[in-house]
Every structure is written in structure tokens, then in C-alpha cells.
């Protein structure tokens, strides 16, 4: 593949000031707000990354209280996802379901989050019991809410209870006010709601960047796949933009609690608000990294030009781009939605970081989209993205190669508050069911769900937002759709199960894992279901070929989920870790770990908290939380080997067409890997051989990975492993495990 060259002369000129504004009703909406509860508190800034207190809000009883952060919380859970899991464990019982009042949504930024000198340091982690998986889910999200929450005085926000009216929680971290307001007439969809609330709570124009809003939209209310939009104010575009806590349906929990929005007003951000122990090291490490981006990004990933969409064409070239529900790995129309297009379509002369100091700046925006369907038809909007996952999930995986439709799908997913990845995968499943006669026009209520039919696709989404028709069924997600289709006798149960791309109830994200054993494990052997947060190994395995042996793959499935968990404990974005690497990286030992960047992270943690750690300690910190989460899953009735099973589509070819599209490769594997002769065998017979070989290999991988992780072959962390990690200090954790040994 030749390296794409950026040509500034091809960038479309789009006047983003022409965007539709939604501020008309602001005064009336504000007048309708009623204060239900208000308290005052003393704001404080963090010291060495911690404010040392968290905020608990019960939206049902209106109780608001501060809780101290204990030394044990810091030692074992660090922050972010760790704090989220800790609070959630204490809040729920094994019998708690996602829509019970005791379920919580916890938002925690982590100790490093909020520094401004290094790329990718403004993330917060959102944790809740997922309506889709019924176990804890965590989502790593940008936008300003997390850092501003911390600069208002809190290391985490716990939301519990259930309101009987729509409410907004407002935290004023400058004046020291926390208020729960009834919000009876606020708009529902994020792009309207967040714009209004940002202007409503900002004291003047200069205050706009100090406001961040967490919200969702209409479809979150009627589905299980709701997500949360975390806003940030884009100073150049003068508009409110979003990053999404997408996976696992936390937006549905949010609406189930009848929370309309969370608003924080923080102090004006400066470079020292996190009060790190050693600002000089942070400054030097940050500047070194900014220089690296300047020098290398243009010849490596072009994140600053394309965002994550830069890998669309790479995935296509390596036969790894999901096409038609993960059946195929490439498509002749991919060029219509690859990065050579997006770098013309996304606005370029602007700063697209989702937090200050992100020189990687992948949060691209496509301005000037005039919507063709739905309630906002005719409006001109700015679309956040598209990210790779959206281009692949909403695009190639559903056969949609019209970029404007793709952007419209992306826009509506965002404003309606549903996860683009989940929506893409479930729509691909619906379309394949339609192709194979499992669904038909009657069963979909008239929607013609053929590959690439973007209009039907959008209509299904609008139905989801209205809570009607087939859209409502689709909004249950792949797992529940499979059960529904099978129960109603729509088709062959095995086929339905084979092609429904979910594990633990969560939809697969957008990489074709069929030919990458490492990624098969990376998806299925996860704590929270198949996503690319825990183990994104496909690039290492298939493009860079850094994991040649079975042992390499198993080791990678030990190391990388732990390494990547650490980002979520501290409030880091994972992209700056390996989307740009030092020029000499490939000549370093263990190049796939990007050793110089690992050292940067070690240095940043130490410089923030003043706690000296090594790269080995970093893994131990993660292992504590990772194993705690595994035990949490077991406590909730999942988290065992059987729950790590993968749908066959993710392991191998389900259908004849799939086999035949790669016959040469598959036949060769029969010779090389199975020692058999494919000659004279029919496709069905060869498929059966593959199924046996591939499922066997996956099962072997499970054994190897569990053993390396210090788990039993049933996937349960052993008592020795818990002891080694100091988790035996929690008797409840030990109790859960004991029942399974």
C-alpha cells in the first residue's frame, strides 16, 4: 500500500458558521426549571491528582453527600474505572438488575486526567451495570466533564436511585453549588439539549468552555443500547461537540433513572490545576511527545488529518474490514469512505483534540451536513467524526458506501444517544437476516433491510427513537433479537446464533477477527464483552505480524488487556500510546509495546501522584482491578468460561459463500494446519473441517490465556492469584471465588 499524501488544496471549503442554531427556546425552557434540592459546598482543586473526596447523589431521594477517598481505594483501585467498579460493587447485590434503583452510574476521571501537557489526558471512565450484558460495563470517554468535575472538587460522581420526573444535576465548581432541578420541557436529543444547557449555565461567552454537559437522546429511552454524550465547547467552530461513552447501554440506565442531563461548570482551566508532584517532568515529557507527533504523524497514521478513519483502507487491503455483517473483509467501494475522502470532507484548519493538549487531535468533525431525513431534516449540522468504527460499522458492515448517508447515520446515532458500534453491528445482523430470509418485509414492518439501503436503515433508527415498530425490536440488541427470532421460529437457530455477532450480550466492534486468532481472544476473552478497549491485537497480529506464535498470542492476551486497563484507571486515552510511535521504535526490544511510550506513562503517573512506579508495577496496578472486575462478573452470574464463548462468525466461515470467497486460503490451511488433502472434498465437508480446527484452536487459546492470567480453566481467578494481588483483603471477593473453585 502506498502512503496517502495529504493535499490541502482538495479540502472542501465548508462554512461552519452556517450551522443551524437551537437557542430559540432557551428562556422558556429555563423558566420551566424548578429547583428540587440545592446545597452548597467548598470547591477544591486536586492535590497530586486527587481531590480526596467523591460525590454521591441519589436522584430518587435527592440525597447529596460527600464521601472521603480512602488510602485503600487509591492503593488498589487507583481511580477512573477502578473507582467506578469499587463504588458499583458496594452499591449492588448479586440480584440487582440494570433498571433497579440501586444500580449506579459512576463517572471518574482518574488521577492523571486533567493535566494539559500530554496528549490524551482528559478522559473519564463511566461504569454501570449494563442492560445488555447484565454485568459491569465501563466506557472510556473524552469531553470536558471528567476533568471539570475533578477541578470542581470530586474524584468521582456516583448517581444512584430513580427519579419520577426528568431532572438535571448541576454542579457549579466555582461557586460551590450542587443543584437538582426538574427539567420538564427540555429538549430530548443531545445536539439540541447540550447546546441549550451550555448557554444556559455559562455566565458569559468566555465561560462557555468551562461548561460540560452529559446527555443522551430519544433512542436511549426506548432501547437497551443507549450511550452518553460528553460535551466540550469547540472555540473555533463556536459549537458544542461530543465524545461518547458508547458501549453497553449506559445511556439507557441514565434515562431509566430519568436523568436528562448532568451539567458541570468548572473553573477556567490552566496548566497546573491538577497540582502534580513534579510539573517539570510532565512538561518535558509532554513537549517531547508533541514534537514526536509533529515529526512522525504525517508519515505514520495521519491522525491529525484523518482521525481514526485512517485505517479504513488498511483494513480493506488486509482483508480485515467488516463487510456485510463480518462475512467479507474488503469491498470494491471502500475507496468512497476511506481516509482520502475523509481528509477532504473533515474540516482541517482547526484543533480537534477532545481535551486540551491533545496533539494527536483525532476528534475530527465533518461540518455542513444537511440532513435528508428525520425530525431535523433540512438542518445543517456538524458531525463528530466519523471515527473508524463508524465508517466500518455504519458503512461497510451494512454495505453503506454513500458518505453523506454514513454521516447522517452517525449524526443521528449521536443525537439520539445510541452507540454507533452497537447500532452498526446490529443493523448488519438485521440485514443478513433479511438476506437469508430469516426476516422479510412483513417481519420488519415494511422496512426493506437490504445491504446498503441507508434510507431503510435510517428509518429503523428513527423508529428506535420513537419507540415504535421494528426499530424497537432492533433496539434490544443482537442477543435479544437472536432469542426473539429463534423463539418465533424465524429461521435455523444455529445459523442465527452463528451470525449474530455478540458475546456476553455486547455487539462486536468493527474488526474481522476470523483470520486473527489473537483478536478472536481479544474480543471474547474480555471482562465486559467484545470491544477494542481491552485488546486491540488485530493490527499487531495481521498487519505488523508481531505475534507469530501461539505463545506470543497468549502472552499478548495476558499483557495488553492489563496494559490497556491502566489507561482507564488514570484517565488516559489509549490512542497516543501506539497510533504514533518514535521513529526508532521498530529497532527497540519489544517494539509492539512501544517501550518509550510505556516509560512516558510511568513517568507521568509518578510525576502526577508522587508515587514511584516501574513498568512492572503498572501491570500489577491493572491486574488488581482487572481481576476484581472478573470476580464482579462471577458475582453477577457471568464471568465463566461458558460466557467467553464466541459466535462462530468471529472464528471462521459460516456460509458457503464465505468459504468460497477465500477458498485458496482455507484450502491451504487444510493442508498446512490440519495435514489433510482438500482435493475431492466438497465445500460443506471442508467447512466442517475448519469448524473443528478453529473451535479447537480457540479452546486451546482459552486454556493458555486463563492459565497465564492465573485463572482456573473455568476462567475463575485462583485464590493464590487474588492473594498475590492483595485482593484477599476483601472477604466478599474471596467468598465469590470460593464458590467456584
Amino acid at each position, binding site marked *: 500500500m502506498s502512503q496517502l499524501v*495529504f493535499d*490541502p488544496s482538495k*479540502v472542501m471549503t465548508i462554512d461552519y458558521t452556517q450551522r443551524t442554531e437551537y437557542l430559540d427556546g432557551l428562556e422558556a425552557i429555563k423558566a420551566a426549571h424548578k429547583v428540587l434540592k440545592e446545597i452548597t459546598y467548598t470547591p477544591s482543586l486536586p492535590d497530586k491528582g486527587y481531590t480526596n473526596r467523591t460525590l454521591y447523589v441519589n436522584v430518587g431521594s435527592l440525597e447529596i453527600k460527600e464521601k472521603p477517598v480512602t488510602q485503600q481505594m487509591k492503593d488498589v483501585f487507583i481511580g477512573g474505572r477502578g473507582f467506578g467498579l469499587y463504588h458499583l460493587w458496594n452499591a449492588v447485590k448479586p440480584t440487582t438488575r440494570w433498571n433497579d434503583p440501586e444500580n449506579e452510574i459512576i463517572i471518574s476521571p482518574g488521577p492523571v486526567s486533567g493535566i*494539559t*501537557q500530554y496528549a490524551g489526558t482528559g478522559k473519564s471512565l463511566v461504569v454501570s451495570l449494563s442492560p445488555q450484558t447484565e454485568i459491569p460495563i465501563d466506557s472510556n470517554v473524552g469531553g470536558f466533564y471528567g476533568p471539570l468535575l475533578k477541578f470542581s472538587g470530586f474524584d468521582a460522581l456516583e448517581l444512584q436511585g430513580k427519579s419520577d420526573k426528568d431532572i438535571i444535576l448541576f454542579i457549579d465548581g466555582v461557586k460551590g453549588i450542587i443543584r437538582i432541578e426538574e427539567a420538564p420541557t427540555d429538549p430530548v436529543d443531545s445536539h439540541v439539549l447540550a447546546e441549550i444547557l451550555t448557554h444556559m449555565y455559562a455566565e458569559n461567552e468566555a465561560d462557555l*468552555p468551562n461548561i460540560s454537559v452529559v446527555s443522551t437522546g430519544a433512542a436511549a429511552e426506548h432501547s437497551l443500547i443507549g450511550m452518553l454524550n460528553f460535551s466540550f465547547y469547540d*472555540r*473555533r467552530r463556536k459549537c458544542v461537540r461530543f465524545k461518547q461513552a458508547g458501549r453497553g447501554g449506559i445511556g439507557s440506565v441514565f434515562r431509566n433513572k430519568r436523568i436528562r442531563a448532568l451539567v458541570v461548570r468548572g473553573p477556567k*482551566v*490552566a*496548566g*497546573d490545576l491538577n497540582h502534580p508532584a513534579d*510539573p*517539570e517532568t510532565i*512538561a518535558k515529557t*509532554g*513537549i*517531547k*511527545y*508533541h*514534537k514526536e*507527533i*509533529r515529526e512522525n504523524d504525517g508519515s505514520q497514521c495521519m491522525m*491529525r488529518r484523518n482521525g481514526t478513519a485512517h485505517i479504513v483502507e488498511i483494513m480493506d487491503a488486509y482483508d480485515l474490514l467488516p463487510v456485510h455483517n463480518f462475512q467479507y473483509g474488503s469491498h470494491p467501494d471502500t475507496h468512497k469512505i476511506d481516509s482520502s475522502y475523509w481528509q477532504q470532507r473533515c474540516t*482541517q*484548519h482547526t*484543533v480537534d*483534540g477532545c481535551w*486540551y*493538549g*491533545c*496533539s494527536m487531535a483525532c476528534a475530527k468533525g465533518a461540518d455542513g451536513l444537511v440532513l435528508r431525513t428525520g425530525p431535523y431534516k433540512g438542518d445543517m449540522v456538524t458531525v463528530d467524526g466519523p471515527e473508524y468504527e463508524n465508517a466500518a460499522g455504519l458503512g461497510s458492515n451494512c454495505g453503506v458506501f454513500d458518505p453523506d448517508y454514513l454521516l447522517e447515520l452517525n449524526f443521528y446515532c449521536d443525537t439520539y444517544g445510541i452507540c454507533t458500534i452497537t447500532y452498526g453491528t446490529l443493523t448488519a445482523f438485521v440485514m443478513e437476516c433479511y438476506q437469508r430470509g430469516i426476516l422479510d418485509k412483513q417481519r420488519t414492518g415494511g422496512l426493506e433491510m437490504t445491504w446498503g439501503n441507508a434510507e431503510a436503515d435510517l428509518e429503523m433508527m428513527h423508529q428506535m427513537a420513537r419507540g415504535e415498530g421494528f426499530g424497537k425490536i432492533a433496539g434490544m440488541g443482537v442477543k435479544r433479537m437472536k432469542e426473539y427470532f429463534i423463539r418465533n421460529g424465524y429461521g435455523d437457530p444455529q445459523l442465527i446464533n452463528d451470525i449474530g455477532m455478540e458475546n456476553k450480550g455486547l455487539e462486536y466492534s468493527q474488526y474481522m477477527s476470523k483470520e486473527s486468532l489473537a483478536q478472536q481472544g481479544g474480543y471474547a476473552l474480555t471482562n465486559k464483552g467484545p470491544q477494542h478497549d481491552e485488546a486491540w491485537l488485530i493490527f499487531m497480529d495481521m498487519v505488523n505480524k508481531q505475534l507469530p506464535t501461539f505463545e506470543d498470542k497468549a502472552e499478548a492476551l495476558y499483557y495488553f488487556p492489563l496494559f490497556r486497563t491502566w489507561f482507564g484507571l488514570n484517565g488516559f486515552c489509549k490512542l497516543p500510546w501506539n497510533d504514533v510511535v518514535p521513529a526508532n521504535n521498530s529497532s527497540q526490544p519489544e517494539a509492539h509495546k512501544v517501550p518509550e511510550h510505556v516509560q512516558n506513562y510511568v513517568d507521568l503517573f509518578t510525576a502526577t501522584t508522587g508515587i514511584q512506579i516501574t513498568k512492572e508495577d503498572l501491570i500489577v496496578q491493572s491486574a488488581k482491578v482487572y481481576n476484581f472486575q472478573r470476580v464482579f462478573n462471577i458475582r453477577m452470574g457471568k464471568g465463566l468460561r461458558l460466557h467467553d464463548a464466541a459466535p462462530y462468525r468471529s472464528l471462521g466461515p459460516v456460509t458457503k459463500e464465505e468459504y468460497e470467497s477465500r477458498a485458496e486460503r482455507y484450502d491451504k490451511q487444510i493442508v498446512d494446519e490440519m495435514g489433510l488433502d482438500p482435493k475431492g472434498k466438497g465445500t460443506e465437508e471442508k467447512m466442517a473441517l475448519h469448524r473443528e480446527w478453529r473451535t479447537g484452536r480457540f479452546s486451546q487459546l482459552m486454556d493458555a490465556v486463563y492459565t497465564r492470567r492465573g485463572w482456573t480453566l473455568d476462567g475463575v481467578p485462583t485464590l493464590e492469584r487474588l492473594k498475590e494481588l492483595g485482593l484477599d483483603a476483601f472477604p466478599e471477593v474471596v467468598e465469590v471465588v470460593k464458590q467456584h473453585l
Partner: protein
Amino acid sequence: MKQLVIDFQKCDAGRNCNHECELECAIKVFKVDDPAQAALQIKAYEDGGGHAVLCDQCGDCVVVCPSEALKRNKLGVVMINKTVCVGCYMCIGFCEKDAFMRNSDWITPHKCTSCGICVKVCPHGALAIVDVPEPAVRII
């Protein structure tokens, strides 16, 4: 646009002067008695000749600044608004001339304002402020 330039036919890279330009810039412009904090840095090469770290007001840093703390003033000079700056140092990392400076004691960085104070004290008359057209905005 006002731009500081140096003539190495005249500047001998500190061999026959006391880096008066740096010291004057540090003291008068940035109020610190430390020439290392000056917005220009003159370095001598061992084999003769020299090199100057100078800001040419190219504007690249304006493009990368996430908080719009950097703007051109009426004279086309790139100026920092310290109350808006969030101390991210992207301007430092993205300046190809290494001309955006940082003092460990300050949270915001600093740069040349094309004020010309250094010009006046150079014993060899090697520095000058010139008026040149503003370059086009670059996508970086």
C-alpha cells in the same frame, strides 16, 4: 508583519560580545535576569559561524493552540494571552524553529514579540526588525 532578523555577516555568535541581545531581552521583556529565558538564543558553531533561534512570526503555533491564546496583533506579531493559555505546550512542540520558550517557574510559555529591544543593544548591529508579508495559514 514585523519580524526579527539576524545578519550573520555581522553577528559573530558571541565571540566578541556578551550576548547583550539575550540579556536585554530577558531583563527588559521578560523581567528575569537569565539570558536562557530570552526569546532569542544565539549559538556558536565550533567550526566558526553561528545559528540563531528566532521566531519569524510564521503563525504555526497560532494554528495548533487549542485555547485561542495565540493571535496576531495589529502589527502581525503573534502574541500570547496568558489568561487564556492552558499551558499545554503544543506551541512549543510544534514550533519548527524551537522559538517558543518555557521557563520552569512559569506555567505559561513565552515568545518573541518583535519589540526590537534586542536590536538596539547589539554592538555589531546584526539584528533588525523588518516588515514582511504575513505568510498564509498552514494546515499542520
